[in-house]
């Protein structure tokens, strides 16, 4: 039995019509989705294997509306599931029960740009790339760059503490976030952090980042802007074996170099990305590294020479440095579209494990072995510099039972990551996808302590429930420690 089939049991508890009445009084008609085929469009995100039709979808325009919606959800104790662009690979935006989906995509205004203090304050639904685009002409950018940065929203990035290719040098969301405005489960509006590095008191911002919509609904964010480097150039290195590429990455880092990005693609990934981007990737190598060095022309030249010197010990069969902006753009387009481009070949389950760099080649070999034992093909695309693996296990979604098998295969891979000293998620979050695997990483005491934090913020357990924590343990916890819902839901 698949770990997700239990979900279905949770659905279809009756929800009072008065919820709709309250929402209709608050919002205009075009902010509420109630029709069945419209709700269907909101039943899943980028993890389409799991889907549950929400009870209602609402699209607020302001923090005040979000607060009022939260208050309604609290009043009736109905699950409230925040959604940005719905690009979660872990099912973070899937409503697992008869939920109100609160879609923040219309809150897409940039509120303030302060170049002197290098900050931008934006509404929750602004896309990651839109922040960089807004300050591009002024020579700044927002650093974390998940592959879905074109469409994913900043609030989604905060929920999942998203990373990206260039986070090797600049850190992930939590290292680039200064403050948030957040609506609590009860509908109160709170501010955490602000346009400074170290807020007074406890660092609540760090708890909120990566809380997967379980502690509150972020409606505004203040993020750090960085000056754009003078220039940047990607270098392509092709190898005949995964081992050689993996060892090369470890050697570069161990030698004290910190290129802005080190990305790894294996053969199936190279081929499908090349079709979309025409980046000139070598098609005859087993593994390809994209290493980006940035700075002034001189710095780039020196950096590339140093890396090439280290790489030469591992006999790369292909070496190419991008010579023009267009070449560089095509190389990154290919990498950033990798997940989608693989759709040309097959459906897949995208894993998101982290391992210590020193274990890279060992783990890669093991992943191939595990997938082989399930008779699945696997494509590997990942942020090699920080050990964040994304094996994409290819399967036929239309074959009965295949999803359950692919889940099992994925679980084995993540277990391997944990055993190697790593963890089960690097940047996609736990969501529903890895919920049951949290037990690999934490024992019950750890999980209980984490859930106690959620309970402080969300006493009715309404905010994006049934995510992050293993279902049975979460249920047991709630029976033991939760005060019965305070809602007047008779």
């Amino acid at each position, binding site marked *: 039995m698949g770990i997700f089939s239990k979900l279905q049991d949770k659905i279809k508890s009756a929800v009072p019509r008065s919820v709709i009445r309250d929402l209709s009084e608050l919002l205009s008609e075009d902010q509420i*989705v109630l*029709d069945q*085929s*419209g709700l*269907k*469009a*909101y039943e*899943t*995100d*980028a993890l*389409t*294997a799991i889907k549950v039709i929400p009870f209602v979808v609402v*699209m607020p325009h302001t923090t005040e509306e979000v607060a009022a919606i939260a208050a309604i959800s609290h009043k009736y104790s109905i699950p409230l599931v925040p959604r940005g*662009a*719905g*690009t979660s690979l872990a099912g973070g935006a899937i409503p697992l029960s008869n939920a109100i989906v609160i*879609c923040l*995509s*219309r809150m*897409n205004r940039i509120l303030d740009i302060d170049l002197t203090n290098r900050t931008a304050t934006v509404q929750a*639904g602004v*896309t990651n*790339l839109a922040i960089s*685009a807004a300050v591009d002409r002024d020579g700044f950018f927002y650093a974390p760059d998940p592959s*879905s940065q*074109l*469409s*994913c929203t900043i609030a989604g990035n905060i929920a999942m503490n998203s990373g990206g290719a260039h986070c090797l040098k600049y850190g992930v969301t939590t290292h680039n976030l200064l403050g948030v405005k957040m609506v609590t489960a009860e509908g109160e509006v709170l501010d955490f952090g602000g346009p400074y590095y170290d807020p007074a008191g406890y660092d609540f911002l760090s708890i909120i980042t990566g809380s997967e919509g379980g502690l509150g609904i972020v409606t505004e964010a203040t993020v750090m802007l960085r000056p754009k480097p003078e220039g940047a150039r990607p270098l392509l290195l092709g190898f005949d074996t995964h081992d050689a590429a993996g060892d090369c990455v470890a050697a570069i880092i161990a030698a004290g170099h910190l290129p802005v990005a080190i990305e790894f693609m294996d053969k199936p990934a190279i081929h499908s990305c090349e*079709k*979309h981007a025409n980046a000139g990737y070598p098609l005859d190598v087993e593994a390809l590294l994209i290493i980006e060095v940035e700075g002034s022309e001189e710095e780039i030249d020196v950096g590339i020479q140093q890396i090439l010197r280290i790489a030469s010990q591992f006999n790369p069969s292909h070496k190419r440095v991008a010579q023009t902006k267009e070449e560089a753009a095509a190389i990154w387009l290919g990498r950033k*579209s*990798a*997940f*989608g*481009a*693989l*759709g*040309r070949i097959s*459906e*897949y389950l995208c894993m998101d494990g982290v391992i210590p760099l020193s274990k890279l080649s060992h783990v890669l070999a093991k992943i191939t072995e595990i997938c082989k034992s399930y008779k699945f093909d696997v494509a590997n695309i990942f942020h090699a510099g920080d050990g964040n693996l994304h094996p994409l296990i290819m399967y036929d*979604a*239309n074959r009965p039972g295949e999803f359950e098998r692919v889940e099992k295969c994925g679980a084995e891979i993540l277990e391997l990551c944990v055993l190697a000293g790593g963890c089960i998620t690097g940047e996609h979050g736990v969501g529903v996808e890895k919920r049951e695997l949290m037990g690999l990483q934490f024992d019950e005491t750890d999980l209980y302590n984490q859930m106690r934090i959620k309970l402080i913020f969300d006493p009715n357990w309404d905010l994006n429930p049934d995510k992050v924590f293993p279902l049975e343990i979460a249920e047991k916890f709630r029976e033991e420690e939760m005060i019965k819902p305070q809602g007047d839901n008779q």
Partner: protein
Amino acid sequence: MKTEFTKRQLRNADTQLANDIFRRCVHCGLCTATCSSYVVLGDERDSPRGRIYMIKEMLETGAAPDQTLTKHMDRCLSCFSCMTTCPSGVDYMHLSDLARQEIEEKGHRSLRVRMMRSLLSETLPYPKKLAVSLWLGKLARPFRSLFKAIGFKEMHAMLELMPKKMKRSAEFAGGGTARPLGQQHKRVLLMTGCAQKVIRPSINDASIRLMARQGIEVVIPKNIGCCGALDQHMGREKAAVQHALRNLKIWQAEEEHGPIDGIIMNTSGCGTTVKDYGHLLSKQKGIAEEVERLTEKVFDISEFLMNSDLRTAEQWTDLKVAVHMPCSMMHGQKITHQPADLLQNAGFTVMTLDEAHICCGSAGTYNILQPEIATSLGERKAEHINRVKPDIVATGNLGCLTQMSHYSSTPIVHFIELLDWAYGGPCPESLEHFQNRVDKLAKD
């Protein structure tokens, strides 16, 4: 994505095609960000991904298209920006055609909308009827607010957008052959666009003059009709097929008078459809090869001119031209740089607009049928034009030209009018105030 069709359902060729398209989509959501309707509306149902999902549901269940699907498909501009973005190569264009056919055949639209759609489909592709309608429209124009007041917003939008001045018809409006100046190198057919030859014949005049000067014989086939794009986008496949078949015959007949080096399009919206005749006519037996042979000769005029040696060495103008690429060129035909390169070579300073991948809101008949969204997009485009402050905006499709002229005070022209001017033709009518600037530069 997983699909749930029965074997029996998949025996239908259209369903099989749809299934193949769904299986490619991984539901990643990248397309939402570059979708011209989603950027305005922010609703999953108004995004390509949402529409694909709803179409899948409709086809799997075999249900008739409901109001939700109809509403959100009607809000799609068919700009196909999503297809440029999609890394999986999902063929949204042909999927949306299928959905539109279903809606046209089995869906529910209000009487008002159906009337409006019929009116457009019965007039726009027919120059004579269009000319008469425009005169009638001129009479009705002063009362356009009345239409809005009674809720006939489409009629209001149409009267608002129609040209205020009627142009004289072009020299070759009824068909004919323009002899090349000097030695003849090539012979082409020019598709002159049904609405274009009535509303802005200067685009065709400029195209003909420019090509004739390049030693190209330009044939404007008599009785050449609509390419079928309008009907196809409205889900009227049969009518579109009839248009396409008739045009094929006319091309073949022209070939009997001599070989054709190109079938030239200067209305990119039509170009996308004509280049795709192979798909539109795929159910017609025994003509596939002939369709392929002929459609391989179809070029946008910018593509065709890239092979002519059009360059100017002299600094004859300092005019700054922002290029607005029509979606049908950029996304529909993947023509990205040709118009800009030609303008650059002709001595103009070329500028780019932010958010160039987003539609201006014209989208065929969209600005009439969906006036609110089209207005948002038109204003958005005008803001981007204002930001870079060009002297002129050049585009490649009459629809964009009309739409942007409505929202921006910057003169909007077809790039071919600028090229013709640069290589010895007259200054385009709307740019006459720049002629002094050009003359002054020549004097200095």
